[in-house]
Protein backbone atom coordinates (compact mmCIF):
# COMPACT_ATOMS: atom_id res chain seq x y z
CA UNK A 1 0.00 0.00 0.00
CA UNK A 2 2.92 2.35 0.53
CA UNK A 3 5.02 1.87 -2.58
CA UNK A 4 4.72 5.41 -3.87
CA UNK A 5 6.16 6.98 -6.99
CA UNK A 6 6.38 10.78 -6.66
CA UNK A 7 3.24 11.36 -8.71
CA UNK A 8 1.28 8.62 -6.95
CA UNK A 9 -1.42 11.13 -6.03
CA UNK A 10 -2.48 11.74 -9.63
CA UNK A 11 -5.27 9.81 -11.30
CA UNK A 12 -3.07 9.28 -14.37
CA UNK A 13 -0.41 7.45 -12.38
CA UNK A 14 -2.98 5.50 -10.44
CA UNK A 15 -4.70 4.32 -13.60
CA UNK A 16 -1.37 3.46 -15.23
CA UNK A 17 -0.83 0.96 -12.43
CA UNK A 18 -4.23 -0.68 -12.80
CA UNK A 19 -6.14 1.81 -10.67
CA UNK A 20 -9.97 1.76 -10.70
CA UNK A 21 -10.07 -1.58 -12.57
CA UNK A 22 -11.35 -3.31 -9.44
CA UNK A 23 -13.93 -0.63 -8.67
CA UNK A 24 -15.18 -0.87 -12.23
CA UNK A 25 -15.36 -4.67 -11.95
CA UNK A 26 -17.52 -4.51 -8.79
CA UNK A 27 -20.35 -2.90 -10.77
CA UNK A 28 -21.27 -6.31 -12.17
CA UNK A 29 -21.04 -8.06 -8.81
CA UNK A 30 -23.81 -8.67 -6.26
CA UNK A 31 -23.76 -7.47 -2.67
CA UNK A 32 -23.55 -11.08 -1.45
CA UNK A 33 -20.56 -11.85 -3.64
CA UNK A 34 -18.67 -8.80 -2.48
CA UNK A 35 -19.45 -9.21 1.23
CA UNK A 36 -18.45 -12.88 1.00
CA UNK A 37 -15.18 -11.99 -0.73
CA UNK A 38 -14.21 -9.50 1.98
CA UNK A 39 -15.27 -11.92 4.73
CA UNK A 40 -13.11 -14.61 3.14
CA UNK A 41 -10.15 -12.26 3.01
CA UNK A 42 -10.19 -12.04 6.81
CA UNK A 43 -9.63 -8.26 6.61
CA UNK A 44 -9.88 -6.67 10.05
CA UNK A 45 -10.65 -2.98 10.49
CA UNK A 46 -7.48 -0.93 10.74
CA UNK A 47 -8.91 1.96 12.76
CA UNK A 48 -8.23 0.42 16.16
CA UNK A 49 -11.03 -2.02 16.95
CA UNK A 50 -9.80 -4.75 14.54
CA UNK A 51 -13.30 -5.98 13.76
CA UNK A 52 -13.97 -8.07 10.66
CA UNK A 53 -14.82 -5.72 7.81
CA UNK A 54 -16.86 -8.33 5.94
CA UNK A 55 -18.87 -9.11 9.05
CA UNK A 56 -19.47 -5.41 9.68
CA UNK A 57 -20.80 -5.06 6.13
CA UNK A 58 -23.05 -8.09 6.54
CA UNK A 59 -24.68 -6.47 9.59
CA UNK A 60 -25.92 -3.49 7.58
CA UNK A 61 -29.69 -3.27 8.06
CA UNK A 62 -31.82 -3.47 4.90
CA UNK A 63 -33.48 -0.02 5.26
CA UNK A 64 -32.44 2.56 2.65
CA UNK A 65 -30.95 5.06 2.13
CA UNK A 66 -27.82 3.71 3.76
CA UNK A 67 -24.60 5.71 4.11
CA UNK A 68 -20.89 5.05 3.97
CA UNK A 69 -18.61 7.09 6.20
CA UNK A 70 -14.84 6.93 5.93
CA UNK A 71 -13.09 7.65 9.18
CA UNK A 72 -10.07 9.83 8.46
CA UNK A 73 -10.12 11.49 11.87
CA UNK A 74 -6.73 9.98 12.69
CA UNK A 75 -5.83 11.57 16.05
CA UNK A 76 -4.57 8.78 18.32
CA UNK A 77 -1.21 10.02 19.63
CA UNK A 78 1.57 8.23 17.76
CA UNK A 79 -0.51 7.54 14.64
CA UNK A 80 0.30 9.07 11.25
CA UNK A 81 -0.34 6.23 8.80
CA UNK A 82 -3.63 7.47 7.36
CA UNK A 83 -1.99 10.84 6.73
CA UNK A 84 0.52 9.14 4.41
CA UNK A 85 -2.18 7.09 2.67
CA UNK A 86 -4.29 10.22 2.15
CA UNK A 87 -1.46 12.47 0.97
CA UNK A 88 0.45 10.04 -1.18
CA UNK A 89 -2.19 7.67 -2.54
CA UNK A 90 -5.65 9.25 -2.31
CA UNK A 91 -7.02 7.35 -5.32
CA UNK A 92 -6.22 4.00 -3.73
CA UNK A 93 -8.50 4.93 -0.84
CA UNK A 94 -11.11 6.42 -3.15
CA UNK A 95 -11.26 3.21 -5.17
CA UNK A 96 -11.86 1.43 -1.87
CA UNK A 97 -14.68 3.87 -1.16
CA UNK A 98 -16.35 2.95 -4.46
CA UNK A 99 -15.96 -0.78 -3.77
CA UNK A 100 -17.43 -0.39 -0.27
CA UNK A 101 -20.29 1.74 -1.60
CA UNK A 102 -21.21 -0.75 -4.31
CA UNK A 103 -20.96 -3.69 -1.91
CA UNK A 104 -23.27 -2.00 0.56
CA UNK A 105 -25.64 -0.42 -1.98
CA UNK A 106 -24.78 3.04 -0.76
CA UNK A 107 -25.19 6.12 -2.96
CA UNK A 108 -23.86 8.77 -0.60
CA UNK A 109 -20.44 8.53 1.02
CA UNK A 110 -18.72 10.95 3.38
CA UNK A 111 -14.98 11.15 3.94
CA UNK A 112 -14.37 12.70 7.35
CA UNK A 113 -10.84 14.13 7.67
CA UNK A 114 -9.55 15.65 10.90
CA UNK A 115 -9.37 19.44 10.76
CA UNK A 116 -5.61 19.64 11.29
CA UNK A 117 -5.07 17.54 8.13
CA UNK A 118 -5.59 20.44 5.72
CA UNK A 119 -3.13 19.04 3.18
CA UNK A 120 -4.47 15.46 3.22
CA UNK A 121 -7.98 16.90 2.85
CA UNK A 122 -6.88 18.96 -0.17
CA UNK A 123 -5.36 15.86 -1.77
CA UNK A 124 -8.49 13.82 -1.22
CA UNK A 125 -10.71 16.61 -2.56
CA UNK A 126 -8.51 16.85 -5.67
CA UNK A 127 -8.77 13.07 -6.10
CA UNK A 128 -12.56 13.23 -5.70
CA UNK A 129 -12.73 16.00 -8.30
CA UNK A 130 -10.61 13.96 -10.73
CA UNK A 131 -12.76 10.87 -10.20
CA UNK A 132 -15.93 12.92 -10.82
CA UNK A 133 -14.41 14.27 -14.02
CA UNK A 134 -13.71 10.72 -15.21
CA UNK A 135 -17.25 9.56 -14.38
CA UNK A 136 -16.07 7.27 -11.60
CA UNK A 137 -18.17 9.26 -9.16
CA UNK A 138 -21.47 11.08 -9.62
CA UNK A 139 -24.47 9.93 -11.61
CA UNK A 140 -24.08 6.50 -13.26
CA UNK A 141 -20.52 5.60 -12.29
CA UNK A 142 -18.48 3.72 -14.90
CA UNK A 143 -21.40 4.09 -17.29
CA UNK A 144 -23.66 1.98 -15.08
CA UNK A 145 -26.96 2.90 -13.46
CA UNK A 146 -25.27 3.24 -10.07
CA UNK A 147 -25.04 6.76 -8.57
CA UNK A 148 -22.43 7.67 -5.98
CA UNK A 149 -21.95 11.09 -4.41
CA UNK A 150 -18.85 11.64 -2.27
CA UNK A 151 -18.42 14.56 0.14
CA UNK A 152 -15.18 15.42 1.93
CA UNK A 153 -15.99 16.73 5.40
CA UNK A 154 -13.38 18.48 7.51
CA UNK A 155 -13.38 18.02 11.29
CA UNK A 156 -12.37 20.83 13.62
CA UNK A 157 -10.09 19.45 16.30
CA UNK A 158 -11.73 16.77 18.44
CA UNK A 159 -10.10 13.35 18.95
CA UNK A 160 -13.39 11.89 20.13
CA UNK A 161 -14.82 12.22 16.62
CA UNK A 162 -12.69 9.20 15.70
CA UNK A 163 -15.24 7.19 17.72
CA UNK A 164 -17.74 6.16 15.09
CA UNK A 165 -20.95 7.36 16.77
CA UNK A 166 -19.31 10.66 17.76
CA UNK A 167 -18.19 11.02 14.16
CA UNK A 168 -21.76 10.49 13.02
CA UNK A 169 -23.01 13.16 15.43
CA UNK A 170 -20.32 15.49 14.14
CA UNK A 171 -21.41 14.83 10.55
CA UNK A 172 -24.97 15.65 11.53
CA UNK A 173 -23.81 19.07 12.71
CA UNK A 174 -23.90 18.25 16.41
CA UNK A 175 -21.29 18.20 19.16
CA UNK A 176 -19.07 15.17 18.68
CA UNK A 177 -20.42 13.20 21.60
CA UNK A 178 -20.58 9.39 21.35
CA UNK A 179 -23.98 7.72 21.29
CA UNK A 180 -25.03 4.76 23.41
CA UNK A 181 -24.65 1.31 21.81
CA UNK A 182 -27.24 -0.20 21.93
CA UNK A 183 -29.42 1.14 20.43
CA UNK A 184 -27.27 3.32 18.17
CA UNK A 185 -25.22 0.71 16.33
CA UNK A 186 -24.35 2.50 13.09
CA UNK A 187 -25.23 -0.56 10.99
CA UNK A 188 -28.84 -0.13 12.13
CA UNK A 189 -29.22 3.46 13.38
CA UNK A 190 -26.33 5.53 12.10
CA UNK A 191 -26.18 8.74 10.14
CA UNK A 192 -29.63 10.40 10.15
CA UNK A 193 -30.79 7.23 11.99
CA UNK A 194 -30.24 5.25 8.77
CA UNK A 195 -28.03 2.14 8.32
CA UNK A 196 -24.41 3.29 8.08
CA UNK A 197 -21.03 1.68 7.50
CA UNK A 198 -18.06 3.41 9.12
CA UNK A 199 -14.68 2.19 7.80
CA UNK A 200 -11.18 3.52 8.41
CA UNK A 201 -8.96 5.00 5.67
CA UNK A 202 -6.44 2.14 5.78
CA UNK A 203 -9.21 -0.46 5.83
CA UNK A 204 -10.75 0.71 2.57
CA UNK A 205 -7.28 1.23 1.04
CA UNK A 206 -6.91 -2.56 1.30
CA UNK A 207 -10.05 -3.29 -0.73
CA UNK A 208 -8.68 -2.82 -4.27
CA UNK A 209 -5.78 -5.13 -3.40
CA UNK A 210 -8.06 -7.84 -2.03
CA UNK A 211 -10.15 -7.83 -5.19
CA UNK A 212 -7.08 -7.71 -7.43
CA UNK A 213 -5.23 -10.59 -5.78
CA UNK A 214 -8.29 -12.55 -4.65
CA UNK A 215 -9.42 -13.06 -1.07
CA UNK A 216 -7.68 -16.44 -0.79
CA UNK A 217 -4.29 -15.03 -1.75
CA UNK A 218 -4.80 -12.16 0.69
CA UNK A 219 -5.18 -14.67 3.54
CA UNK A 220 -1.77 -16.12 2.66
CA UNK A 221 -0.11 -12.82 3.56
CA UNK A 222 0.47 -12.10 7.25
CA UNK A 223 -0.79 -14.26 10.10
CA UNK A 224 -3.63 -16.81 9.59
CA UNK A 225 -5.78 -15.06 12.21
CA UNK A 226 -4.78 -11.57 11.17
CA UNK A 227 -4.44 -11.43 7.41
CA UNK A 228 -2.71 -9.06 5.05
CA UNK A 229 -0.19 -6.37 5.75
CA UNK A 230 -0.84 -3.43 8.00
CA UNK A 231 0.67 -0.07 8.68
CA UNK A 232 2.63 0.59 11.84
CA UNK A 233 3.56 4.15 12.76
CA UNK A 234 6.84 3.88 14.66
CA UNK A 235 7.94 6.93 16.62
CA UNK A 236 9.79 8.09 19.72
CA UNK A 237 13.26 6.84 20.62
CA UNK A 238 14.11 4.88 17.47
CA UNK A 239 16.77 5.63 14.89
CA UNK A 240 14.39 5.30 11.94
CA UNK A 241 10.89 6.51 12.81
CA UNK A 242 8.25 6.25 10.10
CA UNK A 243 5.34 4.27 8.72
CA UNK A 244 6.12 0.66 7.95
CA UNK A 245 3.86 -1.72 6.10
CA UNK A 246 4.53 -5.13 7.62
CA UNK A 247 2.87 -8.54 7.57
CA UNK A 248 1.21 -9.51 10.84
CA UNK A 249 3.36 -11.94 12.79
CA UNK A 250 6.80 -10.30 12.99
CA UNK A 251 8.08 -9.73 16.55
CA UNK A 252 8.47 -6.51 18.50
CA UNK A 253 12.23 -7.10 18.48
CA UNK A 254 12.17 -7.21 14.66
CA UNK A 255 10.16 -4.01 14.57
CA UNK A 256 12.10 -1.92 17.07
CA UNK A 257 15.66 -3.15 16.42
CA UNK A 258 15.61 -4.16 12.74
CA UNK A 259 12.98 -2.03 11.05
CA UNK A 260 13.20 0.91 13.45
CA UNK A 261 16.99 0.65 13.59
CA UNK A 262 17.20 0.37 17.38
CA UNK A 263 17.49 3.05 20.04
CA UNK A 264 19.50 6.24 19.36
CA UNK A 265 22.85 6.30 21.14
CA UNK A 266 22.34 2.58 21.68
CA UNK A 267 20.63 3.34 24.96
CA UNK A 268 18.40 0.77 26.64
CA UNK A 269 14.80 0.17 25.68
CA UNK A 270 12.62 0.91 28.70
CA UNK A 271 9.06 0.42 27.42
CA UNK A 272 6.91 0.90 24.35
CA UNK A 273 3.31 1.65 23.64
CA UNK A 274 2.12 -1.01 21.18
CA UNK A 275 -1.07 0.44 19.70
CA UNK A 276 -1.50 4.14 20.30
CA UNK A 277 -1.89 6.14 23.51
CA UNK A 278 -4.98 4.10 24.47
CA UNK A 279 -3.11 0.81 24.76
CA UNK A 280 -1.42 -0.62 27.87
CA UNK A 281 2.37 -0.54 27.63
CA UNK A 282 4.84 -3.34 26.97
CA UNK A 283 8.30 -3.83 28.49
CA UNK A 284 11.30 -5.63 26.97
CA UNK A 285 11.77 -8.16 29.79
CA UNK A 286 8.35 -9.68 29.03
CA UNK A 287 7.13 -8.79 25.56
CA UNK A 288 10.05 -8.21 23.18
CA UNK A 289 9.82 -11.57 21.42
CA UNK A 290 6.02 -11.67 21.15
CA UNK A 291 4.61 -11.77 17.64
CA UNK A 292 2.67 -8.71 16.54
CA UNK A 293 -0.88 -9.97 16.05
CA UNK A 294 -4.20 -8.91 17.47
CA UNK A 295 -4.68 -12.08 19.52
CA UNK A 296 -1.18 -12.38 20.96
CA UNK A 297 -1.35 -8.70 21.92
CA UNK A 298 -4.72 -9.22 23.60
CA UNK A 299 -3.45 -12.22 25.56
CA UNK A 300 -0.63 -10.03 26.86
CA UNK A 301 -3.19 -7.49 28.07
CA UNK A 302 -2.98 -4.84 25.39
CA UNK A 303 -3.97 -4.16 21.80
CA UNK A 304 -2.57 -3.20 18.42
CA UNK A 305 -5.16 -0.45 18.23
CA UNK A 306 -4.30 2.08 15.56
CA UNK A 307 -0.84 0.60 14.95
CA UNK A 308 1.06 3.41 16.65
CA UNK A 309 4.22 2.16 18.32
CA UNK A 310 5.81 4.73 20.62
CA UNK A 311 9.26 3.71 21.84
CA UNK A 312 10.72 5.03 25.10
CA UNK A 313 14.36 4.63 26.12
CA UNK A 314 15.90 4.55 29.60
CA UNK A 315 16.12 8.34 29.83
CA UNK A 316 12.33 8.59 29.82
CA UNK A 317 10.50 9.47 33.01
CA UNK A 318 7.49 7.18 33.19
CA UNK A 319 5.53 9.56 35.42
CA UNK A 320 6.02 12.35 32.92
CA UNK A 321 5.12 10.10 29.97
CA UNK A 322 1.99 8.92 31.80
CA UNK A 323 1.03 12.49 32.65
CA UNK A 324 1.31 13.50 29.00
CA UNK A 325 -0.95 10.69 27.85
CA UNK A 326 -3.51 11.22 30.60
CA UNK A 327 -3.49 14.97 29.84
CA UNK A 328 -4.43 14.11 26.28
CA UNK A 329 -7.49 12.12 27.35
CA UNK A 330 -8.49 14.76 29.90
CA UNK A 331 -8.36 17.38 27.14
CA UNK A 332 -10.24 15.23 24.65
CA UNK A 333 -12.95 13.92 26.99
CA UNK A 334 -16.29 15.03 25.56
CA UNK A 335 -17.64 15.52 29.08
CA UNK A 336 -20.78 13.41 28.87
CA UNK A 337 -19.82 10.73 31.42
CA UNK A 338 -18.75 11.75 34.93
CA UNK A 339 -16.14 8.98 35.49
CA UNK A 340 -14.26 10.09 32.37
CA UNK A 341 -14.74 13.86 32.64
CA UNK A 342 -13.78 14.05 36.33
CA UNK A 343 -11.53 10.99 36.51
CA UNK A 344 -9.16 11.91 33.69
CA UNK A 345 -8.78 15.43 35.10
CA UNK A 346 -7.93 14.08 38.57
CA UNK A 347 -5.46 11.55 37.15
CA UNK A 348 -3.71 14.37 35.30
CA UNK A 349 -3.50 16.56 38.41
CA UNK A 350 -2.19 13.76 40.63
CA UNK A 351 0.45 12.73 38.07
CA UNK A 352 1.55 16.33 37.66
CA UNK A 353 2.04 16.82 41.37
CA UNK A 354 4.11 13.61 41.60
CA UNK A 355 6.29 14.79 38.70
CA UNK A 356 6.61 18.26 40.27
CA UNK A 357 7.79 16.81 43.55
CA UNK A 358 4.57 17.33 45.50
CA UNK A 359 3.58 13.66 45.46
CA UNK A 360 2.55 11.70 48.54
CA UNK A 361 3.16 8.04 49.36
CA UNK A 362 -0.52 7.24 48.92
CA UNK A 363 -0.76 8.81 45.46
CA UNK A 364 -0.26 5.62 43.46
CA UNK A 365 -3.12 4.00 45.37
CA UNK A 366 -5.18 7.11 44.75
CA UNK A 367 -4.41 6.91 41.00
CA UNK A 368 -5.51 3.28 41.00
CA UNK A 369 -8.66 4.10 42.94
CA UNK A 370 -9.67 6.86 40.52
CA UNK A 371 -8.80 4.55 37.62
CA UNK A 372 -10.98 1.82 39.08
CA UNK A 373 -13.93 4.22 38.99
CA UNK A 374 -13.39 4.69 35.25
CA UNK A 375 -12.54 1.08 34.40
CA UNK A 376 -13.90 -1.28 37.06
CA UNK A 377 -11.45 -3.99 38.13
CA UNK A 378 -8.65 -2.50 35.99
CA UNK A 379 -8.66 -5.53 33.72
CA UNK A 380 -8.21 -5.88 29.97
CA UNK A 381 -10.28 -5.43 27.95
CA UNK A 382 -11.64 -2.76 30.29
CA UNK A 383 -15.04 -2.95 31.92
CA UNK A 384 -16.65 0.32 31.03
CA UNK A 385 -18.48 2.80 33.20
CA UNK A 386 -18.74 5.18 30.26
CA UNK A 387 -20.48 5.42 26.89
CA UNK A 388 -17.26 5.04 24.89
CA UNK A 389 -13.74 3.68 25.51
CA UNK A 390 -12.03 7.09 25.86
CA UNK A 391 -12.17 7.10 29.67
CA UNK A 392 -10.80 3.58 30.13
CA UNK A 393 -8.04 4.42 27.63
CA UNK A 394 -6.66 7.01 30.04
CA UNK A 395 -6.10 4.24 32.59
CA UNK A 396 -3.57 2.36 30.40
CA UNK A 397 -0.46 4.28 31.53
CA UNK A 398 -1.54 3.96 35.17
CA UNK A 399 -1.53 0.17 34.72
CA UNK A 400 2.07 0.43 33.48
CA UNK A 401 3.06 2.42 36.58
CA UNK A 402 1.40 -0.21 38.78
CA UNK A 403 2.88 -3.23 37.02
CA UNK A 404 6.35 -2.14 35.95
CA UNK A 405 7.35 1.24 37.33
CA UNK A 406 6.10 1.35 40.91
CA UNK A 407 9.64 2.00 42.14
CA UNK A 408 9.98 5.01 39.87
CA UNK A 409 6.81 6.56 41.28
CA UNK A 410 8.07 5.94 44.81
CA UNK A 411 11.43 7.56 44.09
CA UNK A 412 9.65 10.69 42.80
CA UNK A 413 7.84 10.91 46.13
CA UNK A 414 10.95 10.19 48.20
CA UNK A 415 13.19 12.60 46.29
CA UNK A 416 10.52 15.30 46.09
CA UNK A 417 11.09 15.56 42.34
CA UNK A 418 11.89 13.80 39.12
CA UNK A 419 14.99 11.57 39.15
CA UNK A 420 15.23 11.75 35.35
CA UNK A 421 15.84 15.02 33.60
CA UNK A 422 13.79 15.44 30.42
CA UNK A 423 15.88 15.17 27.26
CA UNK A 424 16.80 18.22 25.22
CA UNK A 425 15.26 18.61 21.77
CA UNK A 426 17.42 16.85 19.20
CA UNK A 427 19.75 19.05 17.19
Amino acid at each position, binding site marked *: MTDHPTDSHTIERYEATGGYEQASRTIGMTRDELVEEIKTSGLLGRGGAAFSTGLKWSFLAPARPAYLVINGDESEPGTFKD*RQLLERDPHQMLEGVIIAAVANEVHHAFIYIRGEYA*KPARRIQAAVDAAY*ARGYLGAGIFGSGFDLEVVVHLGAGAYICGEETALINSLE*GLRGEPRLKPPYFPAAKGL*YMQPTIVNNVETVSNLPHILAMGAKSFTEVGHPLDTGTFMLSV*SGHVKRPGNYEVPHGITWRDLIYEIGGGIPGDRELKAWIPGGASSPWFVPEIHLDDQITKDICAEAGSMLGSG*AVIVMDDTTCMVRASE*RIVRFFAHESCGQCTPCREGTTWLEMILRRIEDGQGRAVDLDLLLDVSDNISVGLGWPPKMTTICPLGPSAVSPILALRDYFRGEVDSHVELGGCPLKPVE*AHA
Partner: protein
Amino acid sequence: MSQWSEATEERAREIISRYPQKRSAVMPLLYLAMAEAGHLTNEGMEEVARWVGITPAQVHAVASFYTMYKREPTGRYLISCCTSITCMLLGGDDILHAVEDESGVPHGETDAHGLLSVEHVECIGACGGAPAVQVNYELIEGVTPERARDLVRWLNGARPEVINGDEMQELFGGVRSFDWAIKEADGAVGPYPAFQPLGTVGSESDA
Protein backbone atom coordinates in the same frame (compact mmCIF):
# COMPACT_ATOMS: atom_id res chain seq x y z
CA MET B 1 -29.55 40.56 6.70
CA SER B 2 -26.48 38.81 5.47
CA GLN B 3 -22.99 40.15 6.13
CA TRP B 4 -21.24 37.63 3.93
CA SER B 5 -19.73 38.29 0.53
CA GLU B 6 -21.57 37.00 -2.51
CA ALA B 7 -18.86 34.42 -3.17
CA THR B 8 -19.15 33.10 0.38
CA GLU B 9 -22.93 32.94 0.09
CA GLU B 10 -22.66 31.00 -3.14
CA ARG B 11 -20.27 28.58 -1.51
CA ALA B 12 -22.58 28.19 1.49
CA ARG B 13 -25.44 27.29 -0.86
CA GLU B 14 -23.27 24.74 -2.68
CA ILE B 15 -22.09 23.16 0.56
CA ILE B 16 -25.60 22.83 1.96
CA SER B 17 -26.80 21.24 -1.29
CA ARG B 18 -24.28 18.42 -0.88
CA TYR B 19 -25.71 17.13 2.40
CA PRO B 20 -28.95 15.16 2.84
CA GLN B 21 -29.80 17.42 5.80
CA LYS B 22 -28.98 21.11 6.11
CA ARG B 23 -27.70 20.88 9.65
CA SER B 24 -24.74 18.78 8.48
CA ALA B 25 -23.34 21.92 6.86
CA VAL B 26 -22.76 23.60 10.25
CA MET B 27 -19.06 22.67 10.43
CA PRO B 28 -18.02 23.77 6.93
CA LEU B 29 -20.11 26.93 7.31
CA LEU B 30 -18.37 27.76 10.58
CA TYR B 31 -15.09 27.71 8.65
CA LEU B 32 -16.60 30.07 6.09
CA ALA B 33 -17.65 32.39 8.92
CA MET B 34 -14.09 32.35 10.30
CA ALA B 35 -12.62 33.15 6.91
CA GLU B 36 -15.04 36.10 6.54
CA ALA B 37 -14.19 37.74 9.88
CA GLY B 38 -10.74 36.33 10.76
CA HIS B 39 -12.20 34.51 13.74
CA LEU B 40 -15.57 33.18 14.76
CA THR B 41 -17.73 36.11 15.87
CA ASN B 42 -21.20 36.01 17.40
CA GLU B 43 -22.50 37.55 14.18
CA GLY B 44 -20.80 34.78 12.21
CA MET B 45 -22.46 32.12 14.32
CA GLU B 46 -25.84 33.84 13.95
CA GLU B 47 -25.35 33.84 10.20
CA VAL B 48 -24.57 30.11 10.22
CA ALA B 49 -27.68 29.53 12.33
CA ARG B 50 -29.82 31.34 9.72
CA TRP B 51 -28.34 29.32 6.86
CA VAL B 52 -28.98 25.92 8.41
CA GLY B 53 -32.19 26.77 10.26
CA ILE B 54 -31.15 26.23 13.89
CA THR B 55 -30.74 28.66 16.78
CA PRO B 56 -27.55 30.65 17.44
CA ALA B 57 -27.27 28.81 20.77
CA GLN B 58 -27.22 25.49 18.95
CA VAL B 59 -24.47 26.75 16.67
CA HIS B 60 -22.55 28.05 19.68
CA ALA B 61 -22.82 24.63 21.33
CA VAL B 62 -21.18 23.05 18.27
CA ALA B 63 -18.53 25.74 17.84
CA SER B 64 -17.45 25.55 21.48
CA PHE B 65 -16.95 21.78 21.25
CA TYR B 66 -14.15 21.94 18.68
CA THR B 67 -10.73 23.50 19.34
CA MET B 68 -10.23 24.86 15.82
CA TYR B 69 -13.19 27.23 15.89
CA LYS B 70 -11.50 30.27 17.41
CA ARG B 71 -14.09 32.44 19.11
CA GLU B 72 -11.49 35.01 20.21
CA PRO B 73 -9.55 37.31 17.89
CA THR B 74 -6.69 35.20 16.57
CA GLY B 75 -3.45 36.31 14.95
CA ARG B 76 -2.88 36.22 11.23
CA TYR B 77 -0.43 33.41 11.97
CA LEU B 78 -1.46 30.71 14.41
CA ILE B 79 1.58 28.76 15.65
CA SER B 80 0.55 25.39 17.07
CA CYS B 81 3.27 23.48 18.93
CA CYS B 82 2.65 19.80 19.55
CA THR B 83 3.49 18.68 23.09
CA SER B 84 1.77 15.28 22.97
CA ILE B 85 3.65 12.11 23.92
CA THR B 86 6.04 11.54 20.98
CA CYS B 87 6.82 15.23 20.48
CA MET B 88 7.36 15.53 24.26
CA LEU B 89 9.79 12.58 24.17
CA LEU B 90 11.83 14.37 21.49
CA GLY B 91 11.82 17.87 22.96
CA GLY B 92 8.45 19.37 21.98
CA ASP B 93 8.24 21.30 25.25
CA ASP B 94 11.51 23.08 24.40
CA ILE B 95 10.05 24.04 21.01
CA LEU B 96 7.01 25.56 22.69
CA HIS B 97 9.20 27.49 25.14
CA ALA B 98 11.40 28.75 22.31
CA VAL B 99 8.36 29.99 20.37
CA GLU B 100 6.88 31.65 23.46
CA ASP B 101 10.17 33.27 24.36
CA GLU B 102 11.02 34.52 20.87
CA SER B 103 7.51 35.86 20.19
CA GLY B 104 6.80 37.13 23.69
CA VAL B 105 3.41 35.43 23.39
CA PRO B 106 2.51 32.78 25.99
CA HIS B 107 0.51 29.83 24.72
CA GLY B 108 -3.19 30.56 24.43
CA GLU B 109 -2.50 34.25 23.70
CA THR B 110 -2.16 36.64 20.75
CA ASP B 111 0.29 39.52 20.38
CA ALA B 112 -0.78 43.16 20.54
CA HIS B 113 -0.62 43.59 16.75
CA GLY B 114 -2.85 40.63 16.00
CA LEU B 115 -0.02 39.04 14.05
CA LEU B 116 0.97 35.95 16.06
CA SER B 117 -1.04 33.55 18.18
CA VAL B 118 0.69 30.71 20.01
CA GLU B 119 -0.90 27.53 21.31
CA HIS B 120 0.22 24.11 22.42
CA VAL B 121 -1.79 21.32 20.87
CA GLU B 122 -2.32 17.61 21.24
CA CYS B 123 -1.03 15.15 18.63
CA ILE B 124 -1.14 16.49 15.06
CA GLY B 125 -0.14 13.22 13.37
CA ALA B 126 3.48 14.07 12.68
CA CYS B 127 5.10 11.71 15.20
CA GLY B 128 7.58 10.28 12.69
CA GLY B 129 8.91 13.82 12.27
CA ALA B 130 8.66 14.89 15.90
CA PRO B 131 8.86 17.49 17.26
CA ALA B 132 6.37 19.19 14.96
CA VAL B 133 4.76 22.61 14.63
CA GLN B 134 1.93 23.90 12.47
CA VAL B 135 1.40 27.45 11.22
CA ASN B 136 -2.19 27.97 10.14
CA TYR B 137 -2.45 24.16 10.05
CA GLU B 138 0.41 23.81 7.56
CA LEU B 139 2.96 21.41 8.98
CA ILE B 140 6.67 21.67 9.75
CA GLU B 141 8.34 18.45 10.90
CA GLY B 142 11.66 17.91 12.64
CA VAL B 143 11.88 21.35 14.25
CA THR B 144 14.66 22.39 16.66
CA PRO B 145 14.41 25.18 19.26
CA GLU B 146 16.73 27.38 17.19
CA ARG B 147 14.73 26.78 13.99
CA ALA B 148 11.55 27.51 15.92
CA ARG B 149 13.01 30.90 16.87
CA ASP B 150 13.93 31.47 13.21
CA LEU B 151 10.35 30.68 12.26
CA VAL B 152 8.99 33.31 14.65
CA ARG B 153 11.47 35.91 13.36
CA TRP B 154 10.54 35.05 9.75
CA LEU B 155 6.80 35.41 10.38
CA ASN B 156 7.37 38.73 12.16
CA GLY B 157 9.69 40.04 9.46
CA ALA B 158 8.63 38.57 6.12
CA ARG B 159 4.90 38.45 6.93
CA PRO B 160 4.15 36.05 4.07
CA GLU B 161 0.81 36.52 2.33
CA VAL B 162 0.37 32.78 1.98
CA ILE B 163 1.66 30.15 4.41
CA ASN B 164 3.16 27.37 2.31
CA GLY B 165 4.09 24.12 4.05
CA ASP B 166 6.84 23.11 1.63
CA GLU B 167 8.53 26.49 1.97
CA MET B 168 8.41 26.36 5.77
CA GLN B 169 9.63 22.76 5.85
CA GLU B 170 12.61 23.72 3.73
CA LEU B 171 13.44 26.78 5.86
CA PHE B 172 12.75 25.44 9.34
CA GLY B 173 12.14 21.68 9.20
CA GLY B 174 14.21 18.53 9.46
CA VAL B 175 13.30 14.85 9.64
CA ARG B 176 9.87 14.04 8.18
CA SER B 177 7.35 11.27 8.91
CA PHE B 178 7.60 10.24 5.27
CA ASP B 179 8.74 11.67 1.93
CA TRP B 180 6.28 14.47 1.14
CA ALA B 181 7.38 14.30 -2.53
CA ILE B 182 4.74 16.59 -3.98
CA LYS B 183 5.32 20.36 -3.93
CA GLU B 184 2.27 22.51 -3.40
CA ALA B 185 1.84 25.93 -4.97
CA ASP B 186 -0.39 27.63 -2.44
CA GLY B 187 -1.31 27.41 1.20
CA ALA B 188 -3.11 29.05 4.10
CA VAL B 189 -4.13 32.71 4.36
CA GLY B 190 -5.46 32.83 7.91
CA PRO B 191 -5.75 30.91 11.18
CA TYR B 192 -8.04 28.26 9.72
CA PRO B 193 -7.31 25.25 7.50
CA ALA B 194 -6.63 25.92 3.81
CA PHE B 195 -9.27 23.61 2.47
CA GLN B 196 -12.23 24.32 0.24
CA PRO B 197 -14.86 21.64 0.42
CA LEU B 198 -16.31 20.64 -2.96
CA GLY B 199 -13.30 21.74 -4.95
CA THR B 200 -14.47 22.42 -8.47
CA VAL B 201 -16.94 19.64 -9.07
CA GLY B 202 -20.45 19.13 -7.84
CA SER B 203 -22.88 16.41 -8.83
CA GLU B 204 -24.62 18.68 -11.33
CA SER B 205 -21.60 20.24 -13.01
CA ASP B 206 -20.11 17.05 -14.43
CA ALA B 207 -23.24 15.88 -16.23
